[in-house]
């Protein structure tokens, strides 16, 4: 079933075309990763899928219905989004934050129902955040905090979760922890995942489908096997790389050897310094 469909979508930001006539669709129950170099429009695409940015042209359809036609509250019950960076919330407890995920399901006056408490409990259990449920967000490590934010999106109980670079600022161990968590949630509960990733090996290991962005358009899409090639890495990222299959995990794996063209920064004229 097609959950999300983008038809000829263009997005303009500050009079610049950031997404250019993009066509794409997301099937329910799969994990999608959007990869591409900085400024290729990955985050813009994700925000457009979330209804946070309005396309200048084209249509975004959620379950066959225009995204714009959903009231905010109803949309929030269909999809949850994890932002790339979060405001610091010094004295919010883990449990409070996760319970905010119930907001779109609650009446306007915000009454807390028993069902909400149970779902919050479940979301924390799934993300391993129960042990520090009563602690303040500011007392957690980066990895723990990220899992709490994921728990909040989980408490939203939406069929689609959008994640904008969920592993940024985390060390290797916690990066894989987040990847495993996302993978589990997908396999266990059939939650559709669309995420922007920087690490190609994360994307290759955890995704059913990849979308490669270049300069606001789609370069390629398909399974990791189809998409991750020497040629793609050269064309899109401008790096020399060897692509292979990891012997143990049978996952696609790329080893970056270096830049395609050597850049000598010292050869650039130092105009700024003179001024």
């Amino acid at each position, binding site marked *: 079933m097609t959950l999300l469909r983008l038809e000829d979508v263009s997005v303009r930001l500050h009079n610049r075309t950031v997404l250019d006539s993009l066509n794409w669709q997301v099937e329910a129950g799969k994990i999608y990763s959007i990869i591409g170099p900085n400024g290729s429009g990955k985050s813009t695409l994700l925000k457009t899928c*979330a*209804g*946070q940015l309005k396309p200048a042209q084209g249509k975004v359809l959620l379950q066959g219905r225009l995204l714009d036609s959903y009231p*905010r*509250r*109803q*949309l*929030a*019950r269909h999809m*949850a*989004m994890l*932002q790339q960076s*979060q*405001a610091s*919330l*010094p*004295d*919010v*407890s883990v*449990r*409070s934050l996760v319970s*905010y*995920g119930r*907001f*779109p399901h*609650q009446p*306007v*006056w*915000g009454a807390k129902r028993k069902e909400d*408490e149970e779902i919050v*409990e479940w979301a924390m259990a799934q993300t391993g955040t129960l042990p520090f*449920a*009563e602690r303040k967000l500011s007392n957690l490590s980066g990895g723990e905090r990220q899992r709490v934010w994921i728990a909040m999106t989980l408490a*939203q109980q939406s069929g689609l979760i959008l994640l904008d670079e969920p592993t940024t600022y985390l060390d290797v161990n916690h990066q894989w922890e987040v990847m495993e968590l996302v993978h589990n949630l997908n396999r266990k509960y059939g939650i559709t995942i669309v995420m922007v990733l920087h690490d190609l090996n994360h994307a290759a290991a955890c995704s059913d489908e990849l979308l490669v962005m270049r300069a606001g358009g789609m370069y390629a899409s398909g399974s990791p096997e189809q998409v991750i090639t020497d040629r793609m890495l050269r064309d899109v990222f401008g790096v020399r790389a060897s692509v292979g299959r990891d012997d143990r995990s049978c996952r696609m794996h790329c080893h970056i050897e270096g830049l395609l063209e050597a850049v000598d920064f010292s050869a650039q004229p130092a105009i700024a310094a003179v001024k």
Partner: protein
Amino acid sequence: MVINAFRIPMSKGILVIVALTAAAILATGFSIGTGAVRISLSEIWLYVFHGYDGPMKEIVWNIRLPRTLVGMLVGANLALSGALLQGVMRNSLADPHIIGVSSGAGLFGIIVLILFPHLWSMLTPIAFLGASGAAAIIYLLAWKDGVQPVRLILAGVAVSAFLGSGISALLIFFSDRVNGALVFMVGGLSAKSWPELEIILPYSLIGMSLAFIGSSHLNILALGDSNARGLGLSVEAARFFLTALATLLAASAVSVVGLLGFVGLIVPHSARLLIGSDYRFLLPASVLLGAAVVTFCDTLARLMFAPLELPVGIMMGALGAPFFLYLLRREAR
């Protein structure tokens, strides 16, 4: 076990609320009981709740009780207004000044008091008009595909400075008539009675009920615009509604008692330090603390240089500023 863990932060919040309620009640008793004549708490009880027809009935019913109630509502409204704005602006140093309530009410109030003294009886509605008008102008100036807190704060600073220069100009041109205007500029509860209470009460009641409904929205707004939208909150609508509410609360208070500064800043900020940033607790805590602080300060202002009476605004500033500095230092540590 699980349910128990859920209650721990709740009960701490409720404990603080109970303590603040007690403080507000004590301040009320202190305010009604002290002055030129002392009246004991038990006597007050008899006068107020049992219609006791004693010698102090006039003093209690016509002077002390209404004045105390006006002070409480003024404190509650200003503190609640400040708490709402701190949430909307995502800035714990925001207060009703920021949306031009003080400068707007100030300029219109001064114009009435200095230029059209015969309109004196219209002072309150005109000041109210100035306060809400200034807020509306600031909101419009800050509007550009929605309102960002930083733009709102900057527009507020600019408009307040503009209106403030008008106030200064009037005070200098008509320096011979300044006396009556000064009390309004500082803010005082002197001679406030039932008519003033009737003006404020509806705003307090409606404002408080709507604010408490909005408290969960403030919690969501605190997560940032993108998160709030993602959770299904109409950020622009919530921001507009809550700012309008804060404006009405502050304007109703300021137009009645004059430019009482600081309550809207230090009370919600102090309440936040006591009870945390969860607006479901912070809003009621601000209301109670605001009522207690203004009532307490007004009583001190009446007593300290008796029979001379200081405007409560001066006492608030004198006590509030050092306390606020103390809180800021404690927070910085």
